[in-house]
């Protein structure tokens, strides 16, 4: 029963309530890091970790957080986990860290994380909050990865930095796809496809 509920919650958070295409949250990083798949994967792992840990921690102390300072506390918790991610990436993946530059630090301002802490973790027990964090992170990640794969292949004719056999030789790079406007186009097309064919909006909904 509990497993079924968890599964349903996971599917809802990553699917119908997806932070990117349903709630349109976290768009800035969607635009910034999705021109190369490798950077996107690292960014996604960072966001999943921060989302899950900050949701769990906020939920753990939710009964004691004074209402007047709750957003300061949430920001502090999120910032601490983001700095940990940043330092660990610098220590273990220095090349990727240099390419991502300030974007890892900017996870602090990713509205998905604060949004889930406010909307979910403050009102639910730690374990479901943790699962909600992972689910929201996974939902954010697969949208970003779809966009990143499309942008890197069309914009640079490569995948994960490597030439693609039978493709890279003849393909003319779409330069706009590696720039921010290309991310807007790719995201808009993806949201349009998903909202039209995969998760159509309820016409009777308010």
């Amino acid at each position, binding site marked *: 029963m509990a497993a079924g509920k968890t599964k349903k919650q996971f599917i809802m958070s990553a699917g119908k309530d997806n932070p990117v295409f349903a709630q349109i949250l976290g768009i800035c990083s969607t635009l910034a890091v999705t*021109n*190369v798949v490798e*950077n996107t994967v690292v960014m996604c792992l960072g966001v999943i970790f921060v989302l899950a840990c900050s949701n769990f921690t906020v939920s753990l*102390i939710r009964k*004691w*957080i*004074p209402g*007047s*300072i709750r957003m*300061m*506390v949430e920001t*502090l*918790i999120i*910032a*601490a986990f983001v*700095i*940990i991610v940043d*330092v*660990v990436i*610098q*220590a*273990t993946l*220095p090349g990727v860290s*240099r*390419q991502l*530059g300030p974007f890892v630090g900017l996870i602090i301002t990713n509205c998905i994380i604060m949004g889930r802490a406010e909307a979910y973790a403050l009102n639910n027990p730690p374990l479901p909050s943790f699962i909600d964090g992972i689910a929201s992170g996974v939902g954010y990640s697969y949208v970003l990865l779809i966009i990143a794969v499309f942008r*890197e292949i069309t*914009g*640079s004719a490569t995948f994960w930095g490597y030439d693609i056999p039978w493709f890279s030789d003849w393909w003319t*790079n779409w*330069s706009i*796809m*590696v*720039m921010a406007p290309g991310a807007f186009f790719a995201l808009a097309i993806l949201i349009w496809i998903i909202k039209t064919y995969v998760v159509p909006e309820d016409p009777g909904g308010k």
Partner: protein
Amino acid sequence: MKTNLVKERIFTVFFMVAVTFVAITLVGIVDIVTAESVERNRGLFLRQAVADAFGIAEHDSIQELLDWYEEFVTEIRDDDDVPDHFWVRNQEGEENLVLIYRGSGLWGGITAFVGFEADGKTIRGVNFQDHVETPGLGARIDERWFRRQFVGKYGPFEELRSEPDDKDNLTKDNQAFHQVTGATITSESVKTIMNRSLERAEMLFSER
């Protein structure tokens, strides 16, 4: 009633201080644990950039790179104790120069490591570090063909040519290089960086 309000406020301040303390302690512990790796990575990047600008593309192992650096490179630091340029001895005992030039690109700074032959003007190699140029466009200045085209030239660079399809057939013109398609501003920045580096190399050799 008033006492409750005071208690509530004291608790709020105490809670914030406690959360801050825990968060800072946690971050501090992770920072201390990873500090050595982060510092080692920074050092390796610097040494690899110097080797690359000197014309050694790769060493067989990290230890070999460290040994080479230790034996052949003299690091000169500026007034702020930051590495500024390097005198690199080759097998013949000649002193070559690798200098660091910090210029500006499209979105931010570009740090270039430029290597020169012992004659003080012929370029041995170039390596670009710490830039935030657009991936897929300006960031392609990192590609080997782009950096390789400066080797053996002594500028000053005045002409930017279009990017060729055949990267093995690049211009031999001393005062020209091929730009990256779609990255005109970055390519212009590289031109400025290379010309300023040439001037600086001349100055450093004359002062020596």
